[in-house]
C-alpha cells in the first residue's frame, strides 16, 4: 500500500463541564504529508492536540498510530509511541542550553540509568556521545547550530520555535505535531518556518499542523480539517476546503 495511514483518530469527544469542546472528531493522516487543523479561536484545536498527546483524557475515541492502537493516557507514553509535539506558548527548558534541550528529547530513545551515569562505562559513554551528536545534527538541521551553547531562554523568539521543533524531532517521532508554530512571528520569520516545515516533510516525516494563519496552512498542507465549536465542518484538500460555504461562514460570519 503506497498510502500508509500514520495517525487514525476516530470519534474523539471531550467535555469540560457544560462545554462540549470536541464532538466526534475524525482525523486520518497519511504518512509523509502535512495535515492542517484550522478553525477560529476556541474551536477546539488545542484541545484536540492535548487529547491526542495524552495531556487531557478523552471521553470517547479510538486512537491508532502507524496501524497500532495507542492509549493517550500519559504524555510520556504518547511520546514513546511516536508523537512529538510543540506548544502554542513555547515551553523550553529555559535555563538549559539549546543543545541540552535537544538532548532531553533523546531521553525517550535512550536507556542509561543511575549505574551508567555514575560508572560511565563504555556503553554509557557511547550513548552519551551519540545523544550529543544527534542533538547537534538536529540543531544544524533547523539552522541554529551556532547557538548550541546559548541558554535557551536567551534565544530570539523565532529561534526558540526552531529549538522546540528540534527537540521534538529528537524523539524520532512518527508524527510531528506543531501547535501554532507561526504564532507571534513576523512575515520573514513565517517564511523561514515554512521552509523548515517543507524541509522536514522532504525527510519523509509526517506533520500535524495547527495554525491560525490560513494563508500559511493553505499553501503548505496536503489535507486539512476545519473545526468550529468542537465539530469538524470540512475535510479535504485545501482548494476544496477554501470554497466550502460552512468554512466561509465560520470564518467570516453568515451573510457572505
Amino acid at each position: 500500500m503506497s498510502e500508509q495511514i500514520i495517525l487514525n483518530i476516530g470519534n474523539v469527544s471531550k467535555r469540560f463541564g457544560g462545554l462540549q469542546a470536541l464532538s466526534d472528531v475524525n482525523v486520518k493522516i497519511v504518512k509523509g504529508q502535512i495535515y492542517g487543523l484550522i478553525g477560529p479561536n476556541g474551536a477546539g484545536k488545542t484541545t484536540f492536540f492535548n487529547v491526542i498527546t495524552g495531556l487531557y483524557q478523552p471521553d470517547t475515541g479510538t486512537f491508532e498510530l502507524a496501524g497500532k492502537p495507542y492509549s493517550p493516557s500519559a504524555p510520556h507514553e504518547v511520546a514513546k509511541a511516536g508523537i512529538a509535539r510543540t506548544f502554542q506558548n513555547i515551553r523550553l527548558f529555559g535555563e538549559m542550553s539549546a543543545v541540552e534541550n535537544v538532548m532531553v528529547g533523546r531521553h525517550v530513545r535512550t536507556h542509561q540509568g543511575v549505574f551508567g551515569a555514575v560508572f560511565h562505562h563504555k556503553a554509557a559513554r557511547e550513548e552519551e556521545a551519540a545523544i550529543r551528536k544527534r542533538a547537534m545534527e538536529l540543531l544544524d538541521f533547523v539552522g541554529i547550530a551556532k547557538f548550541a551553547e546559548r541558554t535557551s531562554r536567551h534565544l530570539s523568539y523565532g529561534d526558540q520555535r526552531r529549538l522546540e521543533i528540534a527537540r521534538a524531532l529528537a524523539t524520532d517521532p512518527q508524527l510531528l505535531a506543531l501547535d501554532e508554530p507561526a504564532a507571534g512571528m513576523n512575515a520573514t520569520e513565517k517564511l523561514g518556518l515554512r521552509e523548515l516545515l517543507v524541509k522536514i516533510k522532504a525527510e519523509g516525516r509526517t506533520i500535524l499542523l495547527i495554525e491560525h494563519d490560513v494563508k500559511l496552512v493553505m499553501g503548505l498542507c496536503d489535507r486539512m480539517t476545519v473545526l468550529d465549536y468542537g465539530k469538524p465542518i470540512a475535510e479535504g484538500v485545501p482548494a476544496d476546503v477554501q470554497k466550502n460555504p460552512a468554512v466561509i461562514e465560520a470564518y467570516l460570519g453568515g451573510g457572505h
Partner: protein
Amino acid sequence: MANYFDTKKNPRKAYTGMAIIAVVAIVFPFVSANFGNSWVRIVDLSLLYIMLALGLNIVVGFAGLLDLGYIAFYALGAYMTGLLASPQFAVVLQSFVDTYPTLGNGLLWLFGAEVAKNGIHLSVWAIVPLGAALAGFFGALLGAPTLKLRGDYLAIVTLGFGEIIRIFMNNLNLPVNITNGPQGINDIDPVSVFGVSLAGEQGSHGIVHFLGISMPSVNAYYFLFLILCIAIVFVTVRLQHSRLGRAFVAIREDEIAAKAMGINTRNVKLLAFAMGASFGGVSGAMFAAFQGFVSPESFSFTESITVLSMVVLGGMGHIPGVILGGVILAALPEILRHVVEPIQMALFGQVLMDAAILRLLLLGLAMVLIMLNRPAGIWPAPKHEDRPDADIDNPGKSTDVVAV
C-alpha cells in the same frame, strides 16, 4: 570564578584548583591539631552537613522539588545506626518481652540470646549501604503521595513528614521502648575500619593508629567523612551530566514539556527523592557513629532549614556552590562561637552580648545581604554564555530577525 572545576572546558585551571583543595584538605587536620581538637571537630560536622546539602541539592537544586523535611532522612540514618550498632537492640527486645510476652519471646527466639544480651553491632560496611537504602526507601515513600504537588504545597507536605519522623523518634518509647524517647540512644559503636576503631582503642586517649600514622580520633573521622564527601560529589557530578541529570533539570524547568518529551516524571521524581534521601541517610549514620549518641533534638525543623539555606545560599544546582554554602553555614556559627566573646572582651572589656544571640544576628544579616546582592547564591552555576566555547564576541545574527 565561573569556570573553576570545569574539567571539560578548562582542564588546567580545574585540575590546579582541585589539586590545591586536595593539598589543603589533607594538610588541614595535621596543622590544626596543634591548636586542639575542636577545630577539626567543627570541620567534621561541616563535612556531614556538606553531605546533607549535596543530597538535598539533587532534590531541590536539580529536580526543583522544595523539600523542607530533609532532616528526616538524616534522622532515619542516625536512628538506624543507633539501633543496629549499639546495645539498644537488647533493650528493645527486653521491652517487647515485658509488654507483649508472646511476641517478645518470638523475637527473642528469632534473634537469639547473643543479641538479647548485647544488642546488634553491625560494621560500618553494612551500616553505610543500609542507611542509604533505608533513607532512599523512605525518600521514595515520601515522594509517592506528593508527585502532583509543587512549590509551596510540596514544601508543606515535606515539612510535615520531617516533623512526623522527629515526633516518632521522640515518642517511640511507649508502649514498647524502641528509641528511648527524648533520652535518645547511647553507646553507639564508633566506626571501625579494617579492625581499627576510629575512636581510638581503650586507654589510648583517643589516639588512632592507622597505616603506621598516629592521629587523634577527630582526624581519623575527618578523613572518613572526606572520603564519603568525595564519593558523594563524584556521584552527583556524574549524575548531573547524564541522561538522568538532564531529566531532573527538565522537570524543574517545565514539567509538562518534560512529560511531552517522553520523560516518565513519576519515576524520575521518585528517583530524585530516593537519591537525595540516601545521601542524607549515610550522613546521619555517620553522625550517630561519630557522636556515639542520638536524640530527637538533633533533628529539629531548624536543621532542615539550615541544610536548605546551604543549598540556596551557595547556589542551587551548582555543586561547588553548594559545598561552599555548606562550609560557610556549618563552620561560621562555630567559628563565631569561638571568637565573638574574646573580641568583645578585647574591645569593651566585658561580654555585652551572648555569643549565641550574636551568632544568630550575624547569620541573619549575612543571609539578607547575600540574598539581596547575589540572589542566585554566592557561587551560582555559570551561565552558558560565560563558558569559553560560547562565542559571545561573535554570536552571529539571529536566524530570523532581519532589518526591513
